[in-house]
C-alpha cells in the first residue's frame, strides 16, 4: 500500500485534525463525533444553511468546500463510507442560522438513509430541512432513469451555486430551487486508469491491467461501461464528450461551464492535453465556455483517471457560479 499513514483506523481523524490545524482561518471541528467540519466563523443569522456529507477520500470534496459562498458544515465518514445520522444531525444543527438547512449531497443509498434519519432527529428541534441530491454520472443509468445515477463531481458546481444563492440572501425554498436547478444541469462522465487503496482495506479496490482503462467507472471503483486498452488522450476526450452530448445536446449560443477533473494521480499536464479537445468540441457545438475548471476538484485519493462535468447555465446559474467564494482549496 503506497500510502503515507499511521494506523489505517486513524486515517480520517488524523486527516481532519491536520486540516483544521493547517487552515484554522477556514475550518473548525464541531460537535462530539469529531467528524463534523464547520466554517471557522459561522455565517450571519438568517442565512440559509447548506450541509453536505459523505465518505472521506475525495478532497477537496466534501470538507474542503466548507467556506464563504459555499457550504456551512459537512459530516464526514470513514473513507468511502457514509457519515452516521448523528454526525449529520450535528452538522445540521451547526448550519442552522434560523432560516433552515439545505441537505445537498450525492445519491448513494447509505447517505440517503442517514441524511433522512438525521432530518428526523433534528425535526424535533424545529430545524427545517430540504434535500437536493446530485445524480450526475451519465454512465451509471440511462437518462430516463436519471434519479438512479450516482453523484460525482457535479457536486462541486452545486455547492458553488447553492452557496452563492444562500449568501445572496435567498430563503430556504429559493436556495433549494437554485440548487435543484444546478444539480439537474450537471452531467458527468469519468474514466479510470488505476485503482486507489482504501486504508482499512490495505490493498487496491480493484485490479486493472497495466495497459487498460475503464470508461464510466464510479469514484469508489463502481463498474463502468467498458474496460479495454488504454486509448490516446484525444480519443478518450472525444468519447467522453460524445457521452455528455448524448445526454445533454447543446445548441449554438448555449453557455456552459466544464470541469476537467483529475481523480488524483493524473497530473494537470494531462488535464490540459484533454482540455484542447474539450474546448474544441464545445466551441464546435456553438457553445460559449464560462469559467472552465481544470484541476483536482473531486478525487478518489490516488486513483489515476479523469472526469468531465458539463453544466448548462442560465443567467441565474451563471451569476451564482461566478460569484465570489473562499475556502482553502478554491477561491473565486
Amino acid at each position, binding site marked *: 500500500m503506497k500510502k503515507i499513514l499511521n494506523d489505517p483506523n486513524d486515517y480520517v481523524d488524523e486527516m481532519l485534525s491536520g486540516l483544521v490545524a493547517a487552515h484554522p482561518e477556514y475550518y473548525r471541528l464541531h460537535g462530539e463525533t469529531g467528524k463534523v467540519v464547520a466554517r471557522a466563523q459561522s455565517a450571519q443569522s438568517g442565512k440559509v444553511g447548506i450541509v453536505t456529507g459523505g465518505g472521506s477520500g475525495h478532497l477537496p470534496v466534501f470538507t474542503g468546500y466548507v467556506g464563504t459562498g459555499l457550504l456551512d458544515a459537512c459530516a464526514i465518514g470513514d473513507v468511502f463510507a457514509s457519515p452516521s445520522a448523528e454526525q449529520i444531525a450535528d452538522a445540521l444543527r451547526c448550519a442552522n442560522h434560523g432560516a433552515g438547512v439545505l441537505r445537498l449531497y450525492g445519491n448513494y*443509498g447509505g447517505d440517503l*438513509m442517514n441524511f433522512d434519519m438525521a432530518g428526523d432527529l433534528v425535526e424535533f428541534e424545529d430545524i427545517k430541512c430540504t434535500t437536493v441530491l446530485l445524480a450526475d454520472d451519465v454512465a451509471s443509468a440511462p437518462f430516463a432513469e436519471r434519479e438512479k445515477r450516482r453523484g460525482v463531481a457535479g457536486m462541486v458546481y452545486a455547492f458553488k451555486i447553492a452557496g452563492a444563492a444562500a449568501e445572496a440572501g435567498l430563503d430556504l425554498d429559493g436556495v433549494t430551487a437554485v440548487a435543484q436547478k444546478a444539480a439537474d444541469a450537471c452531467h458527468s462522465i469519468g474514466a479510470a486508469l488505476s485503482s486507489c487503496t482504501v486504508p482499512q482495506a490495505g490493498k487496491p479496490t480493484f485490479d486493472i491491467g497495466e495497459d487498460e482503462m475503464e470508461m464510466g467507472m464510479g469514484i469508489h471503483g463502481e463498474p463502468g461501461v467498458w474496460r479495454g486498452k488504454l486509448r490516446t488522450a484525444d480519443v478518450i476526450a472525444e468519447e467522453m464528450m460524445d457521452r455528455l452530448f448524448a445526454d445533454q445536446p447543446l445548441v449554438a449560443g448555449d453557455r456552459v461551464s466544464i470541469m476537467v477533473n483529475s481523480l488524483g494521480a493524473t497530473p494537470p499536464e494531462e488535464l490540459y492535453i484533454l482540455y484542447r479537445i474539450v474546448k474544441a468540441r464545445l466551441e464546435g457545438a456553438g457553445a460559449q465556455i464560462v469559467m472552465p475548471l481544470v484541476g483536482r476538484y473531486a478525487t478518489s485519493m490516488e486513483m489515476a483517471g479523469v472526469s468531465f462535468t458539463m453544466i448548462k447555465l442560465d443567467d441565474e446559474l451563471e451569476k451564482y457560479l461566478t460569484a465570489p467564494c473562499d475556502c482553502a482549496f478554491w477561491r473565486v
Partner: protein
Amino acid sequence: MTITSATMRAGIIRLAAAMERDFDMLNSVDGALGDGDLGVTMKRGSATVLQGADDLPEDLGMALLACAQAFTKSSGSSYGTLMATGLMAMAKTLRGETSVEPSQVSSLVALARDAMMARGKAELGGKTVLDSLDAVVQATKGLNAPDEIADAAATSVQTAMDVMRDKPATIGRARIFAEKSIGMDDPGMVAMKQIIIALADLEA
C-alpha cells in the same frame, strides 16, 4: 410474562455477547460481495447499547430511543441506520409505556419493518433484512406465549434465508454482483438471524 425495561436489559447483554462472538463471521459474509463492515457495525452498535444498559429508562419508548441513538452514533453503514430506524419506529408507539405484552411483538416488528422499508426505499422479496423481519411478523402473529414466539421467530428467519438464498441481490452493494449473489445468503439476513436467536435466548 410481560416485556419490561429489565427484560430488555437482559436481551441487550445477550445481544452484545453474540455480536462480539459473530464479529468476524459477519464481516466475512459482508465482505464476499460488499465492504465487509457488517460485523463492525453490529459489534460497535450493540456495545454502545450495552454501555447504556444500566441506565436504561423504565419508559420503553425512551429505552428504545436510546438504543436507536446508539446505532446512529456508532456507524454510518446501511445496516446500523436501518436498525436505528426500526428501533425508533417502535419507540414512538411505546412512548409512555413501561411494559408490553408478548402478543404485541408481531405488530411492533411490523412497525419496524415498515419504517425500514420507507427509509431504505426497498420492497419485500428483495433478499434483505426486510424479508427476515416480515417472516418474523407473519410467524409470530396471533401467538401469546413467550417461548412459542421465540421459537417461531427463530425458525422463521432461518426459513426466510433458505427461501431467498437462490434469488439475486437487488439492494445494497451486492446488487452490482446480482448474478454472483445467487446461492449466497444476504449478510443482513444472516445478521438478523443471529440477533433474533440472541434476543430469543436460544442457542446459535
